[in-house]
């Protein structure tokens, strides 16, 4: 091992492949979805109807925060919190392109301000503050904006005595904010300490992927830790580990089922059951 092999806050995971209709002449007006796991091909319409879960093998395709809010909050009603915070490029960072430009481009491309969206609403009648990460925003990387938004979410929870849930979907820390990004691990943990003191439940929901800095902080600190099936959850990325150990990793390594078996998750919840299971947990905490 040399320090060269260190790091791995970013990791890439396989994505479902969306093919243009013109390649598949059988179906008009739509797209095809090919499941990356079982290779089954279905229309994107059917796939979306099934909450972007493969009807054959149950593979959970990554979906946007907006869709989670839709399937979780009663009547899809919620209020977004701290919506106007965005990155300041505190280090004046430039790699192959200036960080400032990267931010502007990503904002334009995704319509998001950063890798975190916070909302408050009700799940089966129980109030819940949800801080959900956006993987499409620079790999869901955690910088000062993500940290601050979690802090604001926790403040709202404290003030209104409403449970907090953080949905992680992140490759780890945001390198372009370097040590500031690293300190968000401590910042968010301080807020979770304050929630704990006030006996307000904190639920961690690990989505695909939850790696690096998120795993080394709030993702593993829930009063209950939940995950979707098959989500990659780990500290080091699979590639870094493979380089370290010098051989391929076993099937299912660092996936939700593996992480539950090793004692770090309370339960794995299928997407279609999220609302019901959350509602049940919130009821248990409340009554």
């Amino acid at each position, binding site marked *: *091992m040399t320090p060269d092999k260190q790091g791995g806050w970013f990791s890439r995971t396989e994505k479902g492949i969306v093919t243009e209709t013109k390649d598949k002449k059988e179906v008009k007006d739509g797209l095809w979805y090919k499941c990356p796991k079982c290779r089954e091909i279905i229309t994107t319409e059917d796939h979306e109807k099934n909450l972007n879960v493969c009807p054959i093998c149950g593979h959970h395709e990554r979906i946007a925060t907006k869709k989670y809010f839709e399937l979780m909050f009663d009547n899809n009603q919620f209020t977004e919190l701290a919506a106007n915070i965005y990155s300041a490029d505190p280090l004046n960072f430039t790699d192959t392109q200036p960080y400032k430009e990267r931010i502007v481009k990503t904002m334009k491309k995704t319509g998001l301000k950063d890798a975190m969206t916070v909302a408050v609403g009700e799940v089966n009648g129980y109030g819940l503050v949800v801080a959900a990460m956006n993987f499409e925003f620079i790999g869901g990387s955690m910088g000062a904006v993500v940290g601050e938004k979690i802090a604001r979410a926790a403040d709202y929870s404290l003030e209104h005595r409403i449970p907090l849930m953080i949905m992680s979907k992140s490759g780890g820390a945001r390198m372009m904010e370097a040590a*500031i990004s690293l300190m968000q691990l401590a910042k968010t943990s301080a807020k979770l300490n304050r929630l704990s003191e006030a006996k307000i439940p904190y639920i961690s929901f690990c989505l695909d992927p939850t790696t690096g800095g998120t795993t080394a902080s709030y*993702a593993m*600190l829930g009063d209950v830790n939940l995950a979707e099936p098959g989500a990659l959850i780990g500290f080091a990325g699979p590639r870094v580990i493979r380089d370290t150990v010098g051989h391929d990793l076993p099937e299912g390594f660092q996936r939700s089922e593996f992480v539950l078996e090793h004692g770090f998750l309370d339960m794995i919840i299928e997407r279609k059951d999220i609302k019901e299971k959350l509602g049940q947990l919130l009821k248990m905490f409340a009554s």
Partner: protein
Amino acid sequence: MILLEFEEPIAKLQEQLDKAIEIAEQADVDMSATIEELEHRIREKRREIYANLTPWQRVQVSRHPERPYTLRYMQALTEGDFAELHGDRNVKDDKAMVGGFGTINGETFMLIGQQKGENTKMRTYRNFGMANPEGYRKALRLMKLAEKFNKPIVTLIDTPGAYPGMEAEERGQGEAIARNIYEMLNLKVPVIVVIIGEGASGGALGIGVGDRVLMMENTWYSVISPESCSSILWRSWDFKQQAATALKLTATDMLELKLIDEIIKEPLGGAHTNPREAYDAVKAAILKHHAELKALDPVKRMDIRMDKYIAMGVYNED
């Protein structure tokens, strides 16, 4: 002494000096004027080089193979009055994480830190200073022990990162580090953190949350090593110098960013050129900060610590 590549100008002078000493000894000639002159020139050259170190050169000094490692500091700070304690009480004793009680100026402290090996055999034994989850859990166990008996904690950081192995993942490397960060925030005793070498990412922060965080002059602290940053952002290993600069990972940068509290000056040429001076500087800093922290109410101290971390982060808001 091993000289780094950028210390090359010193090497030539050192060679002349060695020769002069040899002549003086063998031929019984008075070379004292020459020797003195060469020593002076070496000092001046070193001063010149060290006044203009690039961030990447600092990283190299922080990794100098002769730089004193954690246990050397523990022995020196306590003048040998140190009782090493072992094990996490669950899985094993992680050799990359060391700790124990020691007295500094007559007062008992809990000292904890990552340990690198000093030779080839020991480097493997210490896993290159990369702790597994049991190392972080051993550290937390020792911190809780200190808290129970109201002893202040000093952590010494020197790690290229937490170990990225398969067993580390199975036993929850992420959870272990997360738990430590969380628990260190609410320790009721003073916590002083000193970066004595490499401060790489979560592996460093896993024992790095404190009332005071001090960096020695020639150390680095960031979210990723310059090499890995180069490979990920530039997709090549060749941009480590640029990455080191961009990451703002030096003690000076970190102080400016208000992410650390103080820089501890090192002897000219780095801690390894005069370890005794380095130990004394670290000891003085620990005692100074401990005196200030001891005076605070424990609950208030904890609150200040949490608020300090909550304030970290620069962002825009419309």
